[in-house]
């Protein structure tokens, strides 16, 4: 055991802050993102807490309306642009994508580091804008409010979003090139893990969609700063044009959040069922279908917005069409359990929680896609509940499942499984208590972004706030047991879950270059029945146990481990 600890790995190969800030190792960059987005997550949660506390009573008694409006705006902007969009791709995708395809790094390691710096610059500007006055437009920044009427500083947060977008584009580009060019010999497209397929689809959305939001916020800046009047009806502009441009990106952005989470679930379910994924081809194809059709449904955010009836029809029918590939995935995950050998460690609990919550989120999407019904529930708490079921119940649950699944690989340590299950349960219960009442409040007519609200909605809001407290507790818990595991957790070994895949055939934590020599892949993915015939370690030479040049000589007894 002692010896294992002293193996050269990506964590101990170099020391000091400089070695982290100048690293080009995809695994270290993944950890840089992990730390940054965790800070963002708790900042965004703080804003959510402020909003929920205010909504305990119908009167706006805790803060001024302007303050409340800033709180929900910053909650949205931080969570969407600075947490959810980078979350799984930039942390888990960065760490795992090269390993899963048998590569030593991403195609452009320096570009990868640049993406992180770009993200940090964008996020810092966003945070600086928070401290320097805030923004009160809602994360959607609808014109002409944002361009002509908001008295807060719109330009700085918009600049933050603009810059962060480039980070997303660079990551997407890097992933696409890596998947095309860096796959190990024998790793054909249909031998790729579904996590890789999901990230490939996500990357397509990132590079095709993100430039549009960049242009859009730039136009908002020009409109506001120079009075160009693109979105100003008084100058002949069209305020609704902004909504088209905004949703052309921001609807596919939902798939940037959820597709990687679906990728995670497609890894976790087979691993804890000890069984091949059901319908590999359908799941892979459905990721691409979601990415492509997802670009054609943006108009469903605008059914109440002076859209022509015929345009609304097209957007509605496509919205229903995009539900099918998502449904297929859910059925396939469920079918994977059938005749499996199912065990219930923490990642599996999170994954099952994901399926349940995503199911509710997806099905309530049907309510919103139905034109006549949407006219009633649009811009109410029904919509708020729906997208939180997708983004929190789906994307964050998936992120938690992935983080718990690969934590032993990333850190080499096991966390306390019981504590992790307790957190999963708290999150599941807290989440439902927070957001389910919002469906009811929404149908009963409570509009979103309301600081004051009529008294009849109070019971539901009190339930929601109570749930949010439980949810907050659930999210704080992993911070403790995961950090605790870094020092006190038992060593994980290569493959603590007995899972299938290249990442489980290398050291935990991996050596700096993942593989000493490139592995040759001869197997189908998720081939659990044949797993016993495969090597338990791959791509290794003995060299990894000697320390790099210039390092202190290894202690005695280490060389022959």
């Amino acid at each position, binding site marked *: 055991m002692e010896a294992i600890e002293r193996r050269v790995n990506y964590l101990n190969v170099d020391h000091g802050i400089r070695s982290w800030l100048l690293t080009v190792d995809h695994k270290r960059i993944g950890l840089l993102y992990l730390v940054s987005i965790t800070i963002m997550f708790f900042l965004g949660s703080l804003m959510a807490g402020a909003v929920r506390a205010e909504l305990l009573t119908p009167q706006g008694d805790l803060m001024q*309306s302007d303050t409340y*409006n800033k709180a929900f705006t910053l909650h949205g902007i931080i969570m969407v642009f600075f947490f959810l969009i980078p979350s799984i791709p930039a942390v888990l995708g960065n760490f795992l994508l090269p390993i899963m395809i048998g590569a030593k790094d991403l195609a452009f390691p320096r570009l990868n580091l640049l993406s992180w710096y770009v993200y940090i610059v964008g996020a810092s500007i966003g945070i600086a804008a928070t401290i320097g006055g805030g923004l*009160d*437009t809602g994360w959607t920044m609808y014109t002409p*409010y944002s361009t002509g*009427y908001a008295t807060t500083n719109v330009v700085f947060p918009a600049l933050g979003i603009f810059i962060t977008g480039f980070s997303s584009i660079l990551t997407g580009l890097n992933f696409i090139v890596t998947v095309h060019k860096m796959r190990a010999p024998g790793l054909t497209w249909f031998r790729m893990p579904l996590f890789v397929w999901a990230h490939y689809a996500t990357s397509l959305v990132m590079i095709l969609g993100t430039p549009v939001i960049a242009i859009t916020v730039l136009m908002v800046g020009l409109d506001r700063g120079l009075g160009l009047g693109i979105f100003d*009806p*008084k100058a002949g502009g069209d*305020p*609704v044009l902004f909504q088209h441009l905004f949703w052309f990106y921001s609807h596919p952005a939902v798939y940037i959040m959820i597709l990687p989470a679906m990728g995670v679930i497609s890894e976790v379910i087979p691993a804890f069922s*000890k*069984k*091949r994924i*059901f*319908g590999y081809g*359908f799941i892979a194809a459905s990721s691409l279908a979601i990415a492509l059709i997802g670009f054609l449904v943006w108009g469903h955010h605008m059914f*109440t*917005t*002076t859209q022509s*009836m015929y345009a609304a029809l097209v957007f*509605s029918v496509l919205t229903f*069409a995009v*539900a*099918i590939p998502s*449904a*297929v995935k859910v*059925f*396939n995950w*469920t*079918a994977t*359990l*059938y*005749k*499996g*050998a*199912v*065990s*219930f460690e923490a990642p599996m609990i999170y994954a*099952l929680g994901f399926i349940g919550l995503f199911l509710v989120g997806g*099905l309530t999407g*049907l*309510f919103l*896609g*139905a034109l*006549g019904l*949407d*006219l*009633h529930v*649009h*811009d109410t708490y029904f919509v708020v509940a729906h997208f939180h079921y997708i983004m929190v119940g789906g994307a964050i649950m998936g992120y938690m499942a992935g983080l718990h699944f690969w934590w032993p690989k990333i850190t080499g340590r096991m966390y306390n499984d019981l504590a992790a299950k307790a957190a999963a349960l708290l999150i599941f219960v807290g989440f439902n208590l927070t957001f389910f009442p919002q469906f009811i409040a929404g*149908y*009963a*007519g409570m*509009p*979103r972004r*309301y600081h*004051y609200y009529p008294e009849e909605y109070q019971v539901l809001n009190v339930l929601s706030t109570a749930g949010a407290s439980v949810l907050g507790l659930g999210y704080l818990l992993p911070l403790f047991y995961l950090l605790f595991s870094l020092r006190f957790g038992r060593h994980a070994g290569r493959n603590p879950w007995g899972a299938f895949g290249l990442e489980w055939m290398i050291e935990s934590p991996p050596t700096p270059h993942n593989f000493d020599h490139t592995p040759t892949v001869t197997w189908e993915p998720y081939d*659990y*029945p044949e*797993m016993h015939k495969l090597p338990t370690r791959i791509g290794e030479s003995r060299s990894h146990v000697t320390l790099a040049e210039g390092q202190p000589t290894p202690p005695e007894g280490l060389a022959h481990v």
Partner: protein
Amino acid sequence: MFLSLFLFPPQASTHAFEVDALYVFLIVLCSAVALGVVISMLTFAYRFRRRAGNTIGADIHGNTPLELVWSFIPFVAVMFIFVWGASLYFKLSRPPDNAMEVFVTGKQWMWKIQHMAGRREINELHVPVGVPVKLTMTSEDVIHSFFVPAFRVKADVVPGHYSTTWFEATELGTYHLFCAEYCGTEHSRMIGRVVVMEPAEYQTWLTTGNVTDVAAGGGMATAMATSTGQAASPAKVGEQLFLEKACQTCHLTSPGGIGPQLGGLAGHTVELATGETVTADDAYIRESILTPMAKLVKGYPPVMPTFAGQLSEEQTRALVEYVKSLRAEPGAGEATAVDARQQVGVQ
């Protein structure tokens, strides 16, 4: 029933029941799907749990016919929902011809309502029960959204644009009116109430009530109302404005003016200088007042000054109503030959 009060807002319009029917159908359908999936998931997970004698899953790749079945059945189901939702939407998008018209202006942070008989109100909308009401709406500043949960009706109110929606109230009472599109500091206070009255009571209310004093944008109407002791109709206000702005200098009631004759214009097809044709609806008349160069009528010089920025939305609306109220002069609309003859006659 407590449950229905809790789950549904009051059902007070003809739409409300139809929208709720689709909602209940979807709840039943989606609950069935969700329960089916969750029960299968839990059953499989428990029944095929890992234990001695079951340490590795069965070697199953998938099942293409099954995949096709569970892709196709949901597809049929969602298309059914699509058609149902779309048919409701079409109904909600097309006001009946006999609908009574009310003009709504959104403004940070209030709703200004004007009835065709002239009565105005703020943050309140009085309507008769059992009569279809068509709202023509616009905004003076940012985007707002007119939302009456009890009627299951919502439509965005966009500056520079006339949007419409309609409803027919079925229950007497007072209902919430909300702004559903975030519009700044006091967004959550941009609320009001809709009062549904007996038609007779509504008529009395229309003609005898006090005129709400409109501080902004209502100068002319307020002045007229105070002088006569009763509200002037928008068309009446529009006539005053028409004279005040000297529109009649060019838009003559007889042919031969610099601008087109306006009698009988509303609802008819207009041929433009570009060769296109448009229907002279409210939006067209509004646009032609505010930005006359946008759609120039064929055969007329581009000389009309713009009135953008000089008229409030309510004044513009009054002018539109006045133009719509003008009936065709005898002989008008029979092309330019008539004009020529008459001009010769005059000479």
